[in-house]
């Protein structure tokens, strides 16, 4: 293992410290926790949004803390859900009085820990609602979930629900928007190389020099198929087909596109993929209204990418266009 770290045990803490120093305009840490809050939290007069999960997916989720997106992000250990007490502290600190909305990726540990925090908060009289994101079309069940996994599409939930909350919408209406995003968003990824969790020091799986894993999860969970690597266009086509053939009918509609790097894929390659995606969608009478290319939800140093499509209506388009000012996402 070759990594720029001090001690494996200190990776998350030291990362958070450095993040806070780098983005002190946006965030502040909550003493004694792994929570990063909006600098001006608790913001009154709006529903507060909180997300979180295991670390290793940077800039998710702390990178989306700021105006128009999240009020707080809770970091767990690498690829490990934060515990309920941490999420509970985030809820208490972020709550501006209009209720708190939790954005949870669909992994067994995440769902249990966040739901438990929710109950603790409700016991203290704080209104809490949640959405569970499950945009990955690759597998129905993986070694970390029951049901589909939540991956890069989660960022669309942060953006749309965050903008809705910033408008002053009620907790119920924020939830409706988040559910609409989840219902209309589908993703799939591919890996060319594995990632290494600092604590274990070993790759989570191995791929031959000329192999790729199609349908990879963001923790290196197995996908659908391991095969010889092909061209950028062919890989993009394979992912797109799975996404388009899933239960959302994208035909003839407007979509937002995200081409997301998993950590070690150069921007140049992501743009090559995007070029194909745009052409392919145009040819299929699908109109792209918003395009996002970059690293939004990574998997440590994994090489590879994911493609996310979200079918948009007037409301979602307007929410994507709304102002956002965070370390990793500005509009």
């Amino acid at each position: 293992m070759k990594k720029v770290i001090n001690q494996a045990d200190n990776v998350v803490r030291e990362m958070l410290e450095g993040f806070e120093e780098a983005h002190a305009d946006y965030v502040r840490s909550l003493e004694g926790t792994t929570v990063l809050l909006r600098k001006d939290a608790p913001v009154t007069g709006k529903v507060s949004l909180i997300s979180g999960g295991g670390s290793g997916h940077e800039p998710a989720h702390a990178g989306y803390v700021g105006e128009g997106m999240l009020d707080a992000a809770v970091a767990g250990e690498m690829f490990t859900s934060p515990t309920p007490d941490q999420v509970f502290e985030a809820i208490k600190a972020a709550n501006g009085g209009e209720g708190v909305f939790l954005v949870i990726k669909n992994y067994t540990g995440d769902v249990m820990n966040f739901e438990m925090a929710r109950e603790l908060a409700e016991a203290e009289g704080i209104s809490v609602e949640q959405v569970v994101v499950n945009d990955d079309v690759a597998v129905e069940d993986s070694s970390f979930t029951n049901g589909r996994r939540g991956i890069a599409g989660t960022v669309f939930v942060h953006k749309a629900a965050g903008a809705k909350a910033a408008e002053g919408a009620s907790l119920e209406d924020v939830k409706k928007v988040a559910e609409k995003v989840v219902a209309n968003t589908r993703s799939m990824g591919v890996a060319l190389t594995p990632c290494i969790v600092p604590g274990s020091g070993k790759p989570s799986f191995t791929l031959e020099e000329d192999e790729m894993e199609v349908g990879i999860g963001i923790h290196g969970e197995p996908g659908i198929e391991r095969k010889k690597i092909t061209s950028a266009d062919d890989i993009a086509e394979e992912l797109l087909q799975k996404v388009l053939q899933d239960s959302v009918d994208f035909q003839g509609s407007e979509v937002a596109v995200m081409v997301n790097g998993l950590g070690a894929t150069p921007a140049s390659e992501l743009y090559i993929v995007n070029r194909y995606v745009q052409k392919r969608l145009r040819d299929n009478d699908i109109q792209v209204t918003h395009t996002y290319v970059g690293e939004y939800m990574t998997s440590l140093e994994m090489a590879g990418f994911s493609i996310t499509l979200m079918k948009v209506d007037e409301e979602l388009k307007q929410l994507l266009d709304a102002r956002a000012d965070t370390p990793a996402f500005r509009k």
Partner: protein
Amino acid sequence: MEMKTEQAVAWIEKANALIQSNKEYLTELDQAIGDGDHGLNMSRGFQEAEAKVSGTDYDTVADVFKDVATVLMSKIGGASGPLYGTAFLKMSMTVKDKDPVTEANLADAVEAALNGMKQRGKAEQGEKTMIDVWHPVADFLKNGQNVQADKLEETAERAMNETKDIVATKGRAAYLQERSKGHVDPGSTSSFYLFQALADVWKKGE
């Protein structure tokens, strides 16, 4: 028996002792069909829980359970943390204002814990999880008048051993499908230690 704060604390102390001495065994069980961290996680969680309750003065059993819940949910981690945390939180809520806690109260508490865990883990009996021990124990306590501690321990132990023949459909072991058969479930085993500890405290109180 009746449970007062001393018995509640003694229960956690005994449970911790059993978990510490069976830490390696829990790890072995989890390595066979899970991700191999159950022994370490339970050991850390109960160590901290015991430290917390042994060093605190309590007015009620509910307060003891509440502290245990808080420590377990934050220190065990993974899926077992929220599940055991939920169990003790539900028990705490059930025995609130009950002093001392009677057998009937305890039966209600274990039933509430079971229901909480089923809801949290979205699991039912027969899926090769800790529910497979909690369910028969809850039934046993609910149906019994003047329950005998030996029988409580036997019930939990039998239930634990029966998980060996179950094909897992929840938890990590579910991905092994048929291959999960032939192994005792690690979560059921740690739950057995918890009830073995309860039976032990019970015997002393009889």
